[in-house]
């Protein structure tokens, strides 16, 4: 059915307003990052200022330990993503498919951890990490992030496996698979959208976290990107140019990853496999 022209126009007008609301702040940051010096406020309305310069970006890579921070963030985020996916995909499968003593209790316990705000867990977890001698290490931060991201991921994966008919694994086992092979060859490929969501969530948790990182990482060499960027904002003079340029660079990987995986986020692969 074709809709009337004015409905189409109205629809696009509304969408344009939302797009404007969404990208205005981002454009502002882009604009600040291109201004020479640290001009946070400007009377100029141009997105790209007339005297634009990439000095802030250059400065980040040449005079600031930006690359070091980027490396720290990448190591920690990748580590959290890999352990998160590995543990959530297996734990979620166990919760979905096996009936064992304490299954309900464990699932509720995992859920309960989500009721406490992260800031409340800050001190006990810090004490724990300090006792383990993991302060100022990548591993310390990874343990912390994995512990906070995993509960959600386990539930997410469990929910995803619940939608995959057990008959598929039974068919695979009769076709000669062991339980693990059935999981590996049949269940995991079908759970790809769930795995992608889990990976994204784990990555994001680690990539943009500040408070916990500020406790665990005290040496500037070990800073992650959010910590390093925050350092540009001092009490007397903030380096807004660097701040803005770094913010833009930090968001590029995240946006890219979302664009690449967006089709998995909306795709239901299991449709049509079995008739319910």
């Amino acid at each position: 059915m074709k809709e009337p022209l004015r409905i189409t126009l109205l629809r696009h007008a509304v969408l344009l307003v939302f797009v404007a609301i969404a990208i205005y702040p981002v454009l502002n940051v882009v604009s600040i990052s291109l201004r020479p010096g640290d001009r946070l406020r400007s009377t100029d309305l141009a997105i790209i200022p007339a005297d634009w310069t990439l000095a802030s970006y250059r400065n980040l890579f040449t005079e600031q330990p930006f690359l070091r921070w980027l490396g720290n963030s990448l190591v920690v985020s990748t580590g959290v993503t890999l352990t998160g996916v590995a543990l959530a995909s297996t734990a979620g499968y166990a919760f979905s498919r096996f009936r064992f003593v304490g299954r309900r209790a464990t699932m509720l316990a995992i859920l309960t951890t989500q009721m406490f705000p992260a800031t409340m867990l800050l001190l006990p977890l810090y004490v724990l990490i300090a006792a383990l001698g993991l302060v100022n290490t990548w591993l310390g931060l990874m343990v912390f992030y994995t512990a906070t991201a995993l509960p959600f991921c386990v539930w997410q994966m469990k929910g995803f496996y619940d939608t995959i008919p057990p008959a598929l694994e039974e068919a695979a086992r009769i076709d000669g698979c062991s339980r693990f092979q059935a999981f590996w060859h049949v269940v995991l490929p079908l759970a790809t959208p769930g795995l992608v969501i889990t990976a994204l969530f784990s990555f994001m948790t680690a990539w943009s976290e500040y408070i916990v990182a500020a406790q665990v990482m005290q040496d500037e060499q070990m800073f992650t990107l959010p910590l390093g960027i925050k350092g540009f904002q001092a009490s007397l003079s903030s380096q807004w140019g660097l701040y803005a340029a770094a913010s833009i660079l930090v968001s590029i990987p995240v946006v890219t990853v979302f664009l690449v995986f967006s089709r998995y986020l909306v795709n239901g692969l299991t449709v049509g496999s079995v008739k319910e």
Partner: protein
Amino acid sequence: MATVTLANLHKRYDSGFHAVRGISLDIRAGEFLVLVGPSGCGKSTTLRMIAGLEDVTDGEIRIGDRRVNDVAPGDRDIAMVFQNYALYPHLTVRDNMAFGLRMRRMARGDIDRRVNEAAAALSIESLLGRRPRELSGGQRQRVALGRAIVREPAVFLFDEPLSNLDAKLRVQMRAELARLHRQLGTTVIYVTHDQVEAMTLGDRIVLMNQGVIQQADEPLAIYRRPANRFVAAFIGSPTMNFFPGRIAGGRFAIDGSDVSLPLGAEAAGHPAGPAVLGIRPEDLVVAADGPSMATVTIDVVEHTGHETLAHFMLAGTDHVVRLAGGIAVRPGSSLPLAVRPGALHLFSTDDEGRAWPGVQR
């Protein structure tokens, strides 16, 4: 082709539910055996134990000479077709069929040959490149069959494979399954709740209820000589008419009415006293001139074309008589009914409802 032996098989779930209660069965090599019964009777559980998908609580399963209680499903030399097809959605039809062979590390050329042969036998060659979600229900069913056939197993297990198809397709696939079994000659164990499927496909029918075998026999033998009231009611559509009453002086008097009819050889040796009389709808006939059992008033008429089902009330319960399609009856008309000689079934009045063995045809 292999024999399958079940010896005193039990399944008790952790919840305490005793789904299968001591089943013993010798399935011949090449036999088409149908497990049939109402839902919850234990037929699917029995099949899943044979497949290795459920643990055996007690008893023994042998495929050929080998005890398989503790053998992994993939090592039992069986193939199974599931009710919901259970095709791997992320694989093409070809890969679905080849999956089991690849898991067994069969040579590539052999896999291709077997898949192509099976696809030709099921006329699904044109679908090999598609994925399951692009197929219709009937096509998916064929692919599921194909995935079982390429394995060339010793035993095929079917778990209600036709129940998701529409009526027309079901009849067509039923014939195809029968043909396939004749070609391959493989032992088949087939679970269904549909008595027509059971009657038409099975070399032998095993009728189960509440985890126990009620009767195991050839289809027509079960139809003609049901072992008890449950079997008599389950097999045959419309279901057999039952009349509680008493036997006295060689006659059966139906409770709650003044109808009484003479008994023949079927009651030989039956002591006088209470019993349940069973008459199939087609064994009731219109008494043209001869003596009638009773004249009944028809209240509902169902025309199906080649036959007419006429319902009447007797002693407060609904009964059915099956008439030829050409006979004109209307609701409200009176019909003098007689019973075909030798067509009576007698059952005990207790819960078990055992058939009186005097029934001979």
